[in-house]
Each structure stands twice: as structure tokens, then as C-alpha cells.
């Protein structure tokens, strides 16, 4: 069974958390089952979320989300959340204050409302609603 390492480095276009983009959902059956957590009122499994018609997300609570393309069964993106502790390039991590980023050329895309790194594909950084700190980091498939 695949397992999550919340300290694993964040690698653009490749993966994070010890999980690899473009791998098949069949490799994650036991892992996905282990994510289950229920809303105490509705008893709904809150780990599962349909993002759109053909994309489904499974959340390991507050640590990461894995998003599969239903049509191919492939892991399309992985999103590091507030309890994820791994780093990108030894410097960027969840909670990092945007204004303190010095060594990496990070740019804000107003259309996407995301930060990207010049010349690096397969990774984006989402700030909190006030654009002060990194709230989540997404690595996505380039295929």
C-alpha cells in the first residue's frame, strides 16, 4: 500500500508526500479508504469531493488532497495542505510568508490567482485570502 510521508520534498510535475502524479487510482484503494472522516452531524464522508464532472478529490485531513481524472484513473494533481511539512527547493513550505520569499523568483498571476515560479512548470502556490502566506501548494501533471 502506498503511504504518505508528510515531510517528503515537493517536486514539480512529479509529486509530493511520497505519492506520484500520473499513477493509477488502483494503487491507492487502501490509502483512500484510510482517509475517511465523517461530518459529525450529517455522517457524510468529508474526505471525498467531486471537483467537477470528471475530477474527484480525496483528502487526507488537513495534510493533502489527491485529485484523480475519472476518465483515465490517473492522479492529476496533489495538493499540500496546512499540516504538510515538506519543502519545495528547501525554502517554500505551507505557512511561508509571501513577502519573506527572497531566493526564489515567484510571480503572481492575477487571472489564475496563483503564484508561480519563473521557468518552473508543474507547481503552483495558493495564498490565503489576504495574500499574506502560502496556504496550499499544488503539484500537477504536465501530461
Amino acid at each position, binding site marked *: 500500500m502506498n503511504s504518505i510521508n508528510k515531510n517528503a520534498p515537493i517536486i514539480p510535475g512529479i509529486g509530493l508526500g511520497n505519492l506520484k502524479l500520473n499513477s493509477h487510482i488502483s494503487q491507492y484503494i487502501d490509502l483512500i479508504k484510510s482517509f475517511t472522516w465523517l461530518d459529525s452531524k450529517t455522517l457524510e464522508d468529508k474526505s471525498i469531493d467531486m471537483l*467537477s464532472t470528471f475530477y474527484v478529490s480525496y483528502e487526507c485531513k488537513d495534510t493533502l*488532497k489527491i485529485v484523480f481524472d475519472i476518465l483515465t484513473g490517473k492522479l492529476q*494533481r496533489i495538493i499540500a495542505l496546512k499540516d504538510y511539512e515538506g519543502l519545495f527547493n528547501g525554502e517554500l513550505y505551507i505557512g511561508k510568508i509571501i513577502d519573506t520569499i527572497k531566493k526564489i523568483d515567484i510571480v503572481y498571476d*492575477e487571472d*489564475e490567482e*496563483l503564484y508561480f515560479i519563473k521557468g518552473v512548470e508543474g507547481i*503552483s502556490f*495558493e495564498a*490565503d485570502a489576504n495574500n499574506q502566506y502560502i496556504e496550499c501548494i499544488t503539484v*500537477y501533471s504536465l501530461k
Partner: protein
Amino acid sequence: MKSLTHEGPGKIDIKTIKENPQQLWGKIPEEIADAFRAQGYNVTIEQSKKDSGKAIIIRPDGGNINMVQIHPDGGRHESAYIKISTDNGKLKLISGNEQSYIGDPYGEKHTTVFWMED
């Protein structure tokens, strides 16, 4: 809360959206895409694939509207919104009012905000 309709939004351009932002509100992506197609544009619809959210992106191939993004509520701003990116800035249609929106709705450059209060 408004329910979805199956009536198209009619002709979409910057002027009509500014005059009547309700034109787009509550329309499903395919209805908006069809309205652009009726105006002669090729259109792609895709799920945003680079972030944590559920945004749907509609891109007409031509005209001065480059992109329409539909963001369901529950994202980092909590409120649902539609963002229209044009050659001359952005139009942002936001559910609710300033009090219900998390963050600074006026923080983006060249953006006109319309509140879609119930």
C-alpha cells in the same frame, strides 16, 4: 439561493455584462459557452488543474473577453464568484456582499466588482 436555469444568457460582451451582471449569474458553463459559440467563437471549457479549487474556465477564442472563470463557493474567499478577464481589465461578479467575502475584493488591479446579493 438562485437555482440554475436552462435559458441561455444571450449575447455576451463587456457592455452587456456591465449593464446586467445577472446575465451570467446562475448559468452553467455550457450555457455560457454556447452563448459565445452563437457569437461565432470557438470555446473550450476546462476544470482548473493547477490549484486546490473547483473553478471551471471558459475560454472563447476571439473577441475581447479572454476567459470566464466560475468559482463555486467554499474556496479561499468563501463566496462564489465569476471572473471575466478582458483586454481592458477584469469584471468580478461576487455572491453576497462585502461582509460575506473573505479578503479584499478590490485588491486586484483594473477590476470592477459587482455584488450579486440575494
